[in-house]
């Protein structure tokens, strides 16, 4: 019966209204499937309660010079370090052409707050947490952070100085609420 209908009066290979209808139907079905798939796929993205946990406030007053703390932001460690004048100078004086991922220190701190460096404490190589935030930790040859997983080293500005990490430690979005308080996120 299928043959009986399809071998009608239309010559072989010619475009018919039926071809058009088949295409339109198929295209609509595809759009419909996409519209059904999207809510399911999007439900796996971060939910509103996860996004709502996106900011933390940190009080800087108790952090003595030369030491740092680690706070949790969006499930990740964030390093907040109170740099000494020596450390700041080292970070500022580096020639940019010596860096793997060149970036001046001034781009990595807030103006007027050069003593505070705030970094996402995740090695840009494979996601380990580098050591160096505690004074007893190894800090590597550049006085910053040292990743125990594959030996990447970062300077006092959190810039990568020794591979295999390809990039500097990321800087989270943050603002100074006043001189001793920041809001991350």
């Amino acid at each position, binding site marked *: *019966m*299928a*043959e009986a209908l399809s071998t009608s009066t239309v010559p072989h290979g010619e475009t018919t209204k039926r071809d058009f209808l088949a295409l339109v139907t198929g295209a609509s079905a595809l759009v419909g499937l996409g519209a059904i798939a999207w809510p399911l796929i999007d439900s796996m993205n971060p*939910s*509103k*309660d996860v996004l709502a946990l996106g900011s933390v406030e940190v009080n800087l007053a108790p952090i003595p010079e030369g030491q740092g703390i680690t706070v949790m932001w969006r499930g990740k460690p964030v390093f907040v370090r109170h740099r000494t004048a020596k450390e700041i100078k080292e970070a500022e004086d580096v020639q940019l052409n010596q860096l793997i991922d060149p970036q001046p220190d001034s781009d990595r701190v807030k103006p007027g707050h050069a003593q505070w460096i705030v970094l996402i404490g995740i090695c840009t190589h494979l996601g380990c947490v580098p050591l160096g935030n505690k004074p007893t930790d190894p800090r590597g040859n550049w006085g910053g952070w040292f990743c125990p997983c594959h030996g990447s080293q970062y300077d006092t500005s959190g810039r990568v100085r020794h591979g295999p990490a390809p990039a500097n430690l990321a800087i989270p979005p943050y603002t100074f609420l006043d001189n001793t308080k920041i809001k991350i996120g």
Partner: protein
Amino acid sequence: MVGLHKGEFQNSLVRWIDARLPVFTLMQKEYSAFPTPKNFNYFWNFGAIATVALLIMILTGIFLAMNYVPNSALAFESVQRIMRDVNYGWLIRYVHMNGASMFFIAVYIHIFRGIYYGSYKTPRELLWMLGVLILFLMMATAFMGYVLPWGQMSYWGATVITNLFSAFPLVGKAIVTWLWGGFSVDNPTLNRFFSLHYLLPFIIVAVVGLHVAALHVSGSNNPLGIDPKGPQDTVPFHPYYTIKDSVGLCVFLIVFAIFVFFAPNFFSNPDNSIPANPMMTPPEIVPEWYLLPYYAILRSVPNKLGGVLMMFGSIFILFFLPWLDTSPVRSAKFRPIFRQLVWLLVIDVLVLGEVGAHRPEGLWIIAGRVATAYYFLFFLVLLPIIGKLERPLPLPESISRPVLGPRSGGGGGPVAGGAPAKPMEKA
């Protein structure tokens, strides 16, 4: 003999795969060329509709499970989080919630179709019994799914249904404690219900596979209830019934969408928006609508064990339907008495559903008992007797005859494979 399968496909990759794993041949044979009676009405849509409903339930369920927490302290909150915080969580949950009702509507119409047109009769007994098994698994799955949001109805529904087993003498109490994993419905109960609620749908898929496999051995029944006498009585499944099923499916999905988007809580009980409280039973315990008739039977029997047995029996009895019905004529179209009794059964089940939704007082008790009596009378007494006494109307010679009319018997309409549109003498 060992050897490659011989298919006739143009595409060389398709041919290569098909020679080693003839899935394309299978699809071609079972879903494309599959000869199907040409006189289906829209009642024959509901098998396909129910299959789609099952797939929708599994798909939405998988995504709900990604955010649901099966712990008695966190379950209720996690469902609220799905509704408020998870992207499109409200949509996925409403589709799943209403999907259960839509699935049962489709399956109940499918079962009615089977009873009305005698689809359970030889050679389709096993096909029918697999269907009853699917219904039973669906009810278990739906019940356990309803417990998961851990609201008041969830909790007390779980308590009441699991306590049904306490009606059995001697072992009853031990069974209930075992079901609970404790001395009341609690966290262990919730955990195992979640596990089983995730498992059972896949078992249903497997039984649906057997159901369809059995169908493809005997072929579909049809509104006339007579076997196709040859190719002139059938059409290939594709495109004729893929298109007809698609039309029915679209209407079904529109109704489904109306509930999801405009009345998402139409089927749900407000008491389930209250977190489970083991210290207080809500004033009225009502199961979901699709379980109300069984609930009515349970409450119509003034004896604990008797009620439980009658309730389970009302489903169990369906397994024996192929042998309780003694008439060789399938379709109710040609069975004047059976037809009236079947419609009475439909009304009876609707009455039972209504009774189940009311507190057992006054007239509702009487209505429930009368309806329960008719339900069992129909299957156990009337069906076996009228099969012998009833005088069926004359059956048509073939499917083509009543469809094309006596005048066009010589070959009017389109004919499969150019076969003569004359009923063949033997086949």
